[in-house]
């Protein structure tokens, strides 16, 4: 039933889209708007059908059988709908059409929507031909299901992928808007404003999604790491960087009518980046922790969709050849700073892209597989981001179109920053942290000065101020936690002391080992206390054994200590000994706080418009 209903909706959407495209829809409904709404609703429905299928555990559907278990809590059953490749593509389709419905409310230009439904139809075709989640299963239906991978049974898993997808797919609106602007040559401010609003919306979801994913990795994976430059992380970072550049570039386009082609191209490439990234990861071309099982047809289809998007971009750029080199602005104006901003962000996005696909090239050209990880990105990416952070301190205060007057304040701020950096280096002895202090200190000082001058300004100003400040805090926290963290493997043996010294001033105490039975797993937990002079911090890492697969996961336990955290996992447990992996992450809480502040500031900048 679920299977038939889902397939029906998919085919019916394709049918309606064809009707609309060919103009035959006019014979049924004279109103385009009504028909478009019909298309969007029909295309969005299959996903809801799948979700219902999961909720009622309809195991005649192969996908549902493969990804859930009869005793899973209902919450996880429902959210398993997007755990598999097929389900996630269906979620993509759902979101494209939801964006379509909402966009229809603010802009009912038929041509723009035609492009949206066309792209939607490409994904529907892709789904039907190579990854249909409604495929039936011919086996006996007294089944219990194969169970959702336990690593994915986590609250954050529920929110992280949909949030990211909301970000990726949200970029489709700037894409079709830019496409329309270039075709119609209608460079109206209103359209650019629309683009800005929808870009901010995607940016909100992208940032939030990336932060959630990072936090999920940190709290689930047991290594204290929060960013691994894994290909899937990189392909979420690239659209994010382009999206950030887009928003800043749009400000220039709207406020002083410059950099229009930059903004439009950024809009096109941001969406392409999102789709290309999806292809890269699902096709298994690049090996990563996030790899899905692959099937050759999947890659082919996505390649074709991306090729279509590139060809559109190519065509649009050929057509807009006459709109180049119309920008004129003074050398020390805000426009220049934002142009530099565009340049560095795009360079950073390309660097991450190159790093991610270089192993592919290396295999083809050098016939030797190269691995690219943190060492490379920490060099290349941080190098490109550093100038932006410094510029970010001063750019917001520079006026549009004017030549910035020479100012003593800048000189003093840099001087103070150098002094503080020197002090930090002297006290802590770490060059990387000192450098991070140097590039962010002007931002902190300037933020402080500006705040007191413009204290009750509009929400838009506050949003931008907060966003920039939180980036600064994030960088300081990130560099500090990576430079000063500490990892130790401690073994407690039966009969020996249950308190082991970590360093001068702290020791680890083993309190108890417990064994308990929960709904779909058995849990063995170790109770620990970190004892520091007068303070105690409790930790309780565990190993969970899941039904029906027998899969074992390591549950992380964390405890807060001011801005820092202690972090423990069980590395080995036997009848006569227990080994614990203890990690100390200083300033990690500041990292999460600043990320949330950033997301909040984007939220503020969206609502201030309405």
């Amino acid at each position, binding site marked *: 039933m679920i299977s038939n209903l889902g397939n029906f909706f998919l085919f019916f959407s394709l049918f309606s889209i064809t009707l609309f495209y060919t103009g035959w829809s006019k014979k049924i409904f004279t109103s385009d708007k009504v028909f478009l709404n019909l298309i969007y609703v029909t295309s969005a429905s299959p996903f809801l059908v799948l979700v219902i299928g999961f909720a009622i555990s309809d195991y005649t559907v192969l996908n549902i059988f493969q990804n859930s278990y009869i005793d899973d809590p209902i919450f996880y059953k429902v959210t398993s709908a997007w755990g598999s490749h097929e389900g996630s593509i269906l979620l993509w389709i759902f979101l494209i059409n939801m964006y379509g419905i909402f966009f229809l409310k603010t802009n009912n230009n038929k041509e723009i929507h035609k492009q949206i439904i066309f792209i939607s139809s490409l994904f529907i075709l892709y789904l039907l031909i190579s990854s249909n989640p409604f495929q039936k299963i011919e086996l006996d239906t007294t089944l219990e299901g194969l169970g959702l991978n336990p690593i994915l049974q986590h609250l954050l898993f529920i929110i992280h992928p949909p949030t990211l997808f909301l970000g990726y797919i949200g970029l489709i609106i700037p894409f079709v808007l830019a496409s329309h602007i270039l075709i119609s040559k209608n460079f109206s401010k209103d359209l650019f404003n629309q683009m800005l609003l929808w870009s901010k919306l995607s940016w909100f979801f992208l940032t939030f999604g990336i932060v959630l994913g990072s936090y999920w990795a940190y709290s689930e994976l047991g290594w204290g790491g929060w960013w691994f430059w894994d290909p899937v992380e990189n392909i979420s970072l690239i659209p994010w960087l382009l999206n950030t550049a887009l928003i800043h570039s749009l400000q220039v386009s709207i406020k002083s009518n410059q950099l229009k*082609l930059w903004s439009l*191209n950024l809009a096109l*490439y941001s969406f*392409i980046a999102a789709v*290309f990234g999806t*292809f*890269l990861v699902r*096709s298994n*071309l690049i090996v990563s922790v996030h790899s899905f099982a692959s099937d*050759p047809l999947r*890659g*082919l289809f996505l*390649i074709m969709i*991306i*090729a279509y998007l*590139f*060809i559109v*971009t*190519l065509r649009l*750029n*050929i057509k*807009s*050849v006459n709109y*180049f080199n119309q920008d004129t602005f003074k050398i020390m104006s805000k426009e220049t700073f934002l142009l530099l901003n565009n340049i560095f962000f795009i360079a950073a996005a390309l660097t991450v892209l190159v790093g991610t*696909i270089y192993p*592919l*090239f290396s*295999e*083809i050209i050098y*016939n030797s*597989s190269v691995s690219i990880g943190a060492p490379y990105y920490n060099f290349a990416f941080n190098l490109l981001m550093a100038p932006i952070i410094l510029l970010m301190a001063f750019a917001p205060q520079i006026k549009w179109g004017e030549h910035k007057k020479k100012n003593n304040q800048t000189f003093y701020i840099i001087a103070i920053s150098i002094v503080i950096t020197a002090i930090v280096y002297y006290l802590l002895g770490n060059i990387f942290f000192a450098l991070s202090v140097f590039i962010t200190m002007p931002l902190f000082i300037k933020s402080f000065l500006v705040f007191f001058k413009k204290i009750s300004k509009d929400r838009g100003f506050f949003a931008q101020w907060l966003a920039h400040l939180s980036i600064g805090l994030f960088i300081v926290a990130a560099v500090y936690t990576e430079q000063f963290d500490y990892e130790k493997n401690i073994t407690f043996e039966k009969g020996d002391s249950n308190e082991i010294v970590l360093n001068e001033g702290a020791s680890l105490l083993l309190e108890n080992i417990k064994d308990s039975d929960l709904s779909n797993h058995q849990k063995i937990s170790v109770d620990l206390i970190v004892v520091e002079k007068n303070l105690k911090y409790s930790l309780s890492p565990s190993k969970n054994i899941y039904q029906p697969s027998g899969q074992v996961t390591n549950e992380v336990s964390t405890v807060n200590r001011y801005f820092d955290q202690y972090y423990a996992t069980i590395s080995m447990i036997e009848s006569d000994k227990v080994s614990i992996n203890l990690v100390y992450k200083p300033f990690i809480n500041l990292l999460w706080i600043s990320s949330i502040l950033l997301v909040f500031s984007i939220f503020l900048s969206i609502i201030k418009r309405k």
Partner: protein
Amino acid sequence: MKKNLFIPFIGLFILAICAFYYFNQAPSQKLEAKQVPPVLFEAKDFYKNELIDTQNLGDFYIINFFASWCKPCLAEHPLLMELQSKGIKIIGVNFRDDEDNFIDWIEENGNPFEYIIRDDGSIAYEMGLIGVPETYFINNKIIQKKIQGPLFYEDIETYL
């Protein structure tokens, strides 16, 4: 004027490369002429308690890494027995194993090896072991072929 076309062209080019690579994924098992690391011959055979006699080995022999805790090793074991029955000499390297478990495993399943060496991981490291089971075919002191994972009949038919 043409500069804005540059990016989409590059993009399509990269896409084409990805597509090409995607449909032509060949397993890259390129192995330069590597010699067997000497550390293998510095260890004593477990049962005979003496170093491996390289004269006895001859020009062609096989090195097989195994462990009692490794299920695929058990699966390929009959093939090793068959190789032994054809007179092919195999050096078995027991990788990071508990001694009692290892002895039991050999006794229960049979010993296809001319020599057995117990390894705490250092020999595996020098050989470039990825995981057990792993089999190396040696001729004239040079590694001719390396098979990662359990052996299948096709892998050894030429030697039988």
